[in-house]
């Protein structure tokens, strides 16, 4: 079988093996989660970011199994391959977007995902309290998802947003940094 590119895998899975759900439903569900968190933490947006990241982590560690089960793809050989898979397969099949991969660092351990279109933040306008626009990363759940998913394939990363159109920036950009490749765990009590 010919080796398929991440783009082909993503398109293929998206077309044939994904059950679709109304985008507004997702947007509104996510929106009310964020809005409720803001209420629960009395607009402590730093806390809200953290909670979103945690929720994302718990989603990510499950989603990765789903991706792997659906795509049956091989292990990535480099972090560059991983970035391609994240954009062309991961984001494609779950959100039907393929964020651009840009701004690689010299050592190839850092890259940016640029979101031209972010279904989570459709309709959204940040609260006009002068604080949210500087503190809240509305789509922070995505960072957690990436962190959780990659940890399961032995890649410890840090993911964070550095700009967001909701804040008035020109682009929505997430910075992903590879911290280290995790070693396989050894059985307990095994020398």
């Amino acid at each position, binding site marked *: 079988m010919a080796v398929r590119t991440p783009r082909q895998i993503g398109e293929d899975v998206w077309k044939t093996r994904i059950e679709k759900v109304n985008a507004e439903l997702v*947007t*509104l569900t*996510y*929106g009310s989660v964020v809005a409720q968190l*803001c209420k629960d933490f009395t607009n402590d947006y730093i806390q809200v970011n953290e909670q979103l990241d945690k929720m994302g982590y718990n989603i990510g560690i499950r989603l990765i199994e789903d991706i792997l089960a659906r795509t049956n793809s091989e292990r990535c050989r480099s972090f560059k391959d991983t970035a391609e898979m994240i954009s062309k397969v991961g984001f494609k099949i779950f959100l039907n977007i393929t964020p651009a991969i840009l701004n690689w660092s010299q050592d190839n351990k850092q890259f940016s995902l640029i979101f031209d279109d972010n279904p989570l933040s459709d*309709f*959204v*306008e940040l609260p*006009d309290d002068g604080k949210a626009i500087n503190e809240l990363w509305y789509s922070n759940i995505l960072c957690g998802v990436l962190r959780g998913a990659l940890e399961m394939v032995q890649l410890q990363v840090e993911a964070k947003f550095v700009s967001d159109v909701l804040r008035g920036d020109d682009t929505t950009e997430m910075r992903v940094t590879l911290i280290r490749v995790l070693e396989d765990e050894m059985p307990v009590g095994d020398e």
Partner: protein
Amino acid sequence: MPSAIRLLALMGRENNPLYVRSFDPTLSTEDDQKTDLRYHFLAHIALDVFAARLPTKSADSDFGLLFVQDGIAIYGWMTNTGVKIILGFSSGEVIGSEIRSIFRAIHFAYISLVCNAFYDVDERQPITSRKFDISVRRIVEAWNGTTPPAARSVSVLPGSPKPATPVENVVMSYSDSRTATPVAQTTVS
């Protein structure tokens, strides 16, 4: 001269003003556009007409021309949820069925606003969203001048004599069919 939008108002289910903006070229500042009493007055008169016609109308429907006052023709639309959209046009060409597309566009802008998770729908407060401001302004500006007249599918043929029935302070029924009695005003503009 084509009819320009002079007033856009959204009134809530409880007839509370959600959004009142005038697009009167003589009002230069945004504050004036928000607060000019004449337009608030028009929007509130419209509510009475809505109330009067409600028994004969179904929800989500076109209430047509509500009345004409001070040279402004007021049209109305009520959504399923009881939000009233009110548009005021200056005198000019007859407004036909194309008005529906404006109502739809404004309704859509309102839906987008409501879909913002941080917008509190229960609140009886006026709309302060900048995004909503921008999108309705775009709709109004597109209508008022920047789009070529052909794209607006006006019901009066170019060159045809302008219907010149002076109508003032009259509440009249409105039909959106193209053959309906032309309605226009000749007063100030």
